[in-house]
């Protein structure tokens, strides 16, 4: 007997919520980054779960694409964070607020 889809979705929702809260409450850029990864993985879990439910591999394929994009994004994002750190010896996002009115 298969595990009901609801469990997967519940777990995914929980992960996504944790990620969202993490993005909103953290000031450290690296922690925000980790929270964003958590959100991405929650979405990936949802995709895979629905793929299993429908017996359709499209969802799994999409999850792979998502992971590739996430990896690429991490590369660029980390590079930016590193260069910000080199410049100001800090990765606090609230300090980086030159781009405003």
């Amino acid at each position: 007997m298969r595990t009901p889809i609801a469990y997967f979705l519940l777990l995914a929702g929980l992960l996504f919520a944790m990620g969202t809260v993490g993005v909103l409450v953290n000031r450290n850029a690296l922690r925000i980054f980790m929270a964003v990864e958590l959100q991405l993985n929650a979405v990936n879990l949802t995709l895979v779960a629905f793929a299993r439910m429908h017996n359709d591999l499209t969802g799994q394929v999409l999850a792979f694409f998502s992971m590739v994009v996430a990896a690429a994004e991490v590369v660029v994002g980390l590079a930016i964070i590193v260069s910000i750190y080199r410049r100001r010896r800090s990765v606090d996002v609230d300090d980086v607020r030159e781009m405003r009115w």
Partner: protein
Amino acid sequence: MVETLTSHDASVLWVIPTLPLAISMLNLFVGKRLGRWAGVLATMAVAASFAVAVASVADLLSRPAGERLASQHLFDWISVGGFRVGADLRLDGLSAMMILVITGIGALIHLYSIGYMAHDERRGRFFAYLNLFVFFMLMLVLGANYLVLYLGWEGVGLCSFLLIGFWSDKLTNAEAAKKAFITTRIGDTLMLVGLATLVFKFGTLDFVPIFGAAPTVLTKDAATVIALLLFAGAIGKSAQLPLQVWLPDAMAGPTPVSALIHAATMVTAGVYLVIRSHVLFEISGVALTVVLVIGVATALFAATCAIAQVDIKRVLAYSTISQLGYMFIAVGMRAYAVAMFFLVAHAFYKALMFLGAGSVIHGMHGEQDMRQMGGLRKVMPVTFVTFAIGALAQAGIPPLAGFFAKDALLEVAQHTGRTAVYGLGTLAAFLTAFYLGRMLILTFFGKPRSDAAEHAHESSPLIWIPLAILAAGVAFAGVLELNPEGKLTSLLDPLLGALHDAGGLPFATLAEIAVAVAVVALAITWWIYGSGRIDPNAFRARMEPMATAAQHGWYVDRAYDVVFVQPAKALARMTGEVLDAKVIDGAVNGVAGLVQRAAAGGRLIQTGFVRTYALVLFLGAVLVLGYIGVRV
């Protein structure tokens, strides 16, 4: 009457206006280097034009009466769809007389100007404008359609403006030029509407098809509208009531300009226009009556103004307005040949008097006030004799030209049963003789009333030779129309239609009355101003406040100032300072300010806090998803 002349091609007509134009351009661009030659070349150009004009007219006259029409097509000017206007010239009896006057008298005035303007640094420019004027005036009278006529019409207006304000370093001169231009513009605008109406009705501006089709195409009312619109142009150009105010001020220009433009030629363009368009006026009938009434009113009005003037040139200006009124009287009575004869005679004696006045002013070192003159006949004999001939001619003393012209006019009035016109015309003739006698006596008789008058000198031969030639012309121009079957009538009647003579008092009786009126008027002026028995100043004082009112043109100027000029200026101020500054600028600045304020508020949402953006993003996503959830 519809024109039935057969036309022939003439290939030299274009030369007549082109000569002055070419020299005008030469003087305009290199006039400064030409020095004295500027005037000589300009005079030669007009004289050469005169020679060609004489040859053309002689050729015209050698043909039988029914074929006296020459035309020349130069090029297609406008060709839009079915509407075509060519640069066409045409020479017939009417334009023949005009071009002879323009080039003939024009050449003499150019000659005079060489002497008159000898010490002016900008004489090259002066002669350029003067020649340009001759060009436009010739185009006006030679044009074979209304558009060429209108080109000349506006062109002479422009030259008039340039020459009135020629000494524009003096503000009043520049203002007089502006006034002349704007006042005539009122008439010109109405005339342009008239031309547009012609295009609308006939689809062409050529004289021949318009006048041919007019009796069938136009209703009486349509003809009245068109004729009155054209006449409005004539009123402006010929300084008739109610647009007469610009001409006295136009005397600010150099005196040769007054003689050529504001006496002999340009101001008579209105008379020419009405005679040229006589077919339209005759279909209307009402329009002719309007012409007649305006003519009578102007002749009397201006004559009363002339009596009270103290500036010698302003006397002549009002006198010109009055005489133009006479011409319109003749036109209004359909006596076109008489009007043209009057026009030619007037061109001679008025040009003569203006040039004579110029000679006096020259001799008096710029003084124009007649109260400062007196006794000049002894020091300026040639000027005196020629000026007197001109004045006597205009006063109507036989055998000078003016006598025949005025008498022919009054005869027509009497013989067509227009007793009121005859009476008022005779009254105007009395006033004419009166102001001329007053001017003559104040200027040339009595004792010198100022140092300038005592030390005045005769002008150079360059100035008095044209005077002498014009005086001879005035003396003998009367032969053009010595009897009702005169040469002029026979030239113009096939073109314009003969006048039906209902009969009346015989010519000799009318002539005796006219001469008696003139002589009595002159005698009265002698009694008042010349005999010494009456103090002219006391006489004038007894006539106050009428005398001052007349001197100021019965305050028409002031009335126009209150009724039109001040409200227009107030309106301009209102639009400038309130409408433009507050409303229009306010709207533009208001919109810009609104955008600026909205932007100032809107940009505050760019806080620079990444986590705020993330929160807004999250809430936005929740909103969108929530909306989708509710929909589904």
